[in-house]
């Protein structure tokens, strides 16, 4: 197995694990929201998303296996919320981190990959996942918009840097891990390209979205500028 095949297999195995974790997280969040917002459409979207993510995990594991890499191991439902937050704030924190940031970044990554010349089997998987991830990103913005309509959500601003720090892989900043352009054929962004997409998605989608809904982006912009200057 050459280095590109191995890197592609590891990337898809990692994605399989990420997707399994998302399935657990979405199922848990779907159960929590009705306690304070029984009219919300978001829990139904989260339940459907949990099923989507299980399916995505199988697709990613299938690709990783085709590259000779095991399927990514088990997944853990990791709680990421600060202990000081009450239940409703904690749900909002987690939805923003998982959907408004991570799923939105995933959509941008998938759209970029679909603009490249990927192998047919890879392209088929990318296309199927991308279709669902748009809905997954939207449900985060839907929940934040509902919350912002009835209460002050500005407390999130101070926490966005923590969410971002927990989102990026080690090595993305300052330069991004190098990688051959050949990775694109296998559905993987080389490090510098990944960094570019990550930062532009924050600058032009995530942070303007947060600001529009009452969450200052100033702490997040300071976090970014410290890492790319």
């Amino acid at each position, binding site marked *: 197995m050459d280095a590109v095949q191995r890197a592609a297999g590891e990337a898809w195995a990692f*994605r399989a694990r*990420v997707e399994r*974790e*998302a399935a657990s997280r979405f199922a848990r969040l779907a159960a929590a929201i009705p306690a*304070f*917002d029984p*009219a*919300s*459409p*978001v829990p139904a979207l989260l339940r459907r998303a949990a099923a989507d993510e299980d399916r995505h995990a199988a697709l990613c594991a299938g690709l990783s296996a085709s590259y000779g890499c095991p399927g990514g191991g088990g*997944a*853990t*439902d*990791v*709680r*990421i*919320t*600060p*202990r*000081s937050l*009450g*239940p*409703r*704030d*904690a749900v909002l924190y987690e939805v923003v*981190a998982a959907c408004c940031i*991570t*799923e939105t*970044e*995933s959509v*941008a*990554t*998938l*759209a*970029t990959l679909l603009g490249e010349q990927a192998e047919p089997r890879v392209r088929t998987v990318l296309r199927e996942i991308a279709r669902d991830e*748009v809905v997954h990103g*939207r*449900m*985060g*913005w839907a929940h*934040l*918009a*509902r*919350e912002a*309509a*009835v*209460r002050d959500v500005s407390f999130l601003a101070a*926490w966005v840097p*923590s*969410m*971002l*720090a*927990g989102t990026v892989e080690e090595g993305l900043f300052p330069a991004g891990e190098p990688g051959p352009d050949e990775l694109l054929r296998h559905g993987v962004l080389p490090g510098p390209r990944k960094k570019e997409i990550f930062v*532009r998605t924050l600058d*032009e*989608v995530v942070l*303007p*979205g947060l600001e*529009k*809904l009452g969450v200052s982006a100033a702490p997040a912009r300071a976090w970014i500028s410290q890492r790319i200057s």
Partner: protein
Amino acid sequence: MLFKKLFQLLVLGGAMVGTASGCATPGQAQAAADNKPEDRDGGSSPDGGTAKAQDADGGAAADAGGGVVGW
């Protein structure tokens, strides 16, 4: 162009989905906020996952928040 489209599709589209149904009430917000954080099982970070928890300063403070690793 991609990013402008993503903003419209995800942020504006999502906000529309969220606010098209009946809204939560501030009263419901207050009732939920009155629950103490200790009442829930939050903040733990078992090993083996891809999500990462760390505090806002990058240290090991007890009140740590984290993020979710994606693609």
